[in-house]
């Protein structure tokens, strides 16, 4: 009997163990397993500018090479572009052609290597940049031919923009366009090699109108002081203070130009230029839109990020591509870092020489010149939730964003953006106590202070009776005590007087 009872117990134990194992297996989310296999970390910086690992926001989703789409391999491609109709135009610089891929990036729609220019066949020479305008015109920065070629998407010739004439240009100015973009009014913005004064702007008819978005050089007082002391010869030998060149360019829905540049200080690597060419970018709490905040001091991997391209995605979100460490930084409209991922290496999903970044249907795609491949990254649940929540806040729909942020917190409990987002929503809803709690977790001093001020008023209004009663009672007690003491002293004096 004892034996059978034992057996029964064993059976129960075993079943329980099996059940437990099954639940554990079910509970382990698929993403967590994937995250360990990723060739890079996804991270962010917290309020104290410390490095915080977060769940993966984007995971590698294969790569596209020339062979995989049924043509010869790309040779040092430098730029690509997603057209409004969803096709992808790759500037295959080394092979002097433009390759058009279908939306799924699995086959070639057409290749453009030659075009018919008023009866004569013309070719490209190192086409460096490519862009398709809203009106479906293909703009190609044909760098070594020193011109911008405008074609129809099918490759029919429309016009050529070259040889800009203006007195503000140097006599020996060479027009070598590297990157090009077009806004809704068909104005052409071109980044030109060695044009440190800014981006060149052309009217839709090809007339050069001027420079745009000049980066100002900052000379520190210390440098000025040394230049004062230096002799003329020394000064001529010392390095020139020239602004950095722009590296990548994109245009948003409102016609604002996003232009990236390499900032040696690592503070601001992207500018949002309004039609006057003034920088109107918003910077977050730490005042930094320059990529990595913590950078090493020595070695190949050290130094500030070198941002080579920028893509405006949607709802104020934009991503920067770092060539030095192969990282992709994503910011929202207010300049808050949303997530950072990517790396340099030889595994799938890592880069060697990343040159251009684009976004297509919730995917981020990056062009690597060394591998001649397009790397695809698809968003995870975590990345999607953040994108959606930021998008809802961009639209002003904070109450709906709160649900998304709550889900983000379930995946990443220390996410300061999520805490701040929820806190702000509670603040608008009038729940000041909860707002304070979340805003403190989100380290948002400004809004925490607003919430506390409102909560303090609430407390005062609610407890006014008690506070006033206590104050009145205290005053009465004080007066009585004073009188009593006076009386006692008076008596003592009387006594003394009596004695005398």
């Amino acid at each position, binding site marked *: 009997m004892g034996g059978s009872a034992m057996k029964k117990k064993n059976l129960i134990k075993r079943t329980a163990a099996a059940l437990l194992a099954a639940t554990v297996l079910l509970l382990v989310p698929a993403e967590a397993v994937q995250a360990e296999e990723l060739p890079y970390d996804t991270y962010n910086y917290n309020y104290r500018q410390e490095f915080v690992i977060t769940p993966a926001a984007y995971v590698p989703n294969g790569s596209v090479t020339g062979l995989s789409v049924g043509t010869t391999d790309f040779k040092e491609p430098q730029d690509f572009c997603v057209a409004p109709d969803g096709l992808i135009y790759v500037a295959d610089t080394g092979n002097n052609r433009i390759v058009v891929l279908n939306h799924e990036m699995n086959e070639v729609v057409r290749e453009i290597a030659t075009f018919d220019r008023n009866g004569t066949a013309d070719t490209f020479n190192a086409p460096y940049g490519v862009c398709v305008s809203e009106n479906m015109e293909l703009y190609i920065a044909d760098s070594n031919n020193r011109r911008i070629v405008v074609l129809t998407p099918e490759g029919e010739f429309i016009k050529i923009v070259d040889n800009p004439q203006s007195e503000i240009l140097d006599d020996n100015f060479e027009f070598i366009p590297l990157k090009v973009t077009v806004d809704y009014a068909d104005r052409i913005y071109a980044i030109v090699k060695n044009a440190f004064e800014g981006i060149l702007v052309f009217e839709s008819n090809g007339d050069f109108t001027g420079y745009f978005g000049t980066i100002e050089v900052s000379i520190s007082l210390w440098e000025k002081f040394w230049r004062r002391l230096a002799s003329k010869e020394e000064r001529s030998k010392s390095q020139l203070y020239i602004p950095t060149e722009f590296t990548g360019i994109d245009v948003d829905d409102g016609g604002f130009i996003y232009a990236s540049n390499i900032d040696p200080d690592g503070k601001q690597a992207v500018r949002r230029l309004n039609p006057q060419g003034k920088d109107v970018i918003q910077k977050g709490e730490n005042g930094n839109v320059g990529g990595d905040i913590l950078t090493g001091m020595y070695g190949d991997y050290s130094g500030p990020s070198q941002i080579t391209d920028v893509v405006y995605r949607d709802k104020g979100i934009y991503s920067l591509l770092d060539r030095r460490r192969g990282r992709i930084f994503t910011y929202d409209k207010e300049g808050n870092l949303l997530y950072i991922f990517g790396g340099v290496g030889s595994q799938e999903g890592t880069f060697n020489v990343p040159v251009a970044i684009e976004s297509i249907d919730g995917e981020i795609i990056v062009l690597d010149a060394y591998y001649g491949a397009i790397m695809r990254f698809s968003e995870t649940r975590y990345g999607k939730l953040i994108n959606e929540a930021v998008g809802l806040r961009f639209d002003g729909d904070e109450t709906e964003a709160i649900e998304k942020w709550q889900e983000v917190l379930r995946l990443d409990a220390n996410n300061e953006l999520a805490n701040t987002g929820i806190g702000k929503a509670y603040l608008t809803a009038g729940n000041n106590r909860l707002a304070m709690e979340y805003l403190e977790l989100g380290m948002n001093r*400004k809004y925490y*202070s607003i919430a506390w001020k409102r909560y303090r008023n609430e407390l005062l209004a609610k407890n006014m009776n008690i506070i006033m009663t206590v104050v009145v009672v205290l005053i009465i007690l004080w007066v009585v005590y004073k009188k009593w003491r006076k009386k006692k002293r008076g008596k003592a004096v009387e006594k003394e007087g009596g004695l005398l």
Partner: protein
Amino acid sequence: MKQLFSKEKWKYAFYTVSHPADGYYEIRHRERGSVPIAILLVILFSISFSINRISASFIVNDVDPMTVNLLSELVSVLLLYLLFCVGNWSITCLMNGEGRLKDIAIALGYAMIPMIICMNIGTIFSHAVAADEGAFYVMIIGIGIAYGVFMMLIGVMEVHNYTLGKTLLTIFLTFVAIFIIIFVVLLVGDLINQVYSFFYSIYQELIFRS
């Protein structure tokens, strides 16, 4: 001991706060101060300083509570106190100062009282202010520190019977002395370390060869 911690001595410490010049004079000439109370006040100051940084409101406080270590801060404050007392004493001995080491220790310790009071009031008050009222908090802490520094100055001046100019000069020289003390201590420490490692290597040789 009981006498050193007596109620009268405590009362006198607060009298010194309200009448610094008189108070310090009597500490020097009528034995009204107490060194244990002074040391206790320095310890209290260190604790209030740490607590202020840990638990002042998030609105006015940008310090990461994780980086505040109460114990190590206490040790460094006490060490600084000791260094300043010894440094000041060694300088004033050469410059006709009348104060004894005991008087200097009391003068510095009693000067902590306004800082202790203001730090703690500030910590509590910080939980009542919003961001635009933060100036009041800064003012409270500022008054405490300013009055503390003022008391230290008066203390050194009265205890040694100096003029203001001479006091400032000796305080500057005190810092020089502190650096010399630190330098010598490090030097001696390094020397002892080398002598030790020399004998240790001889010992090792002997052990391995035998």
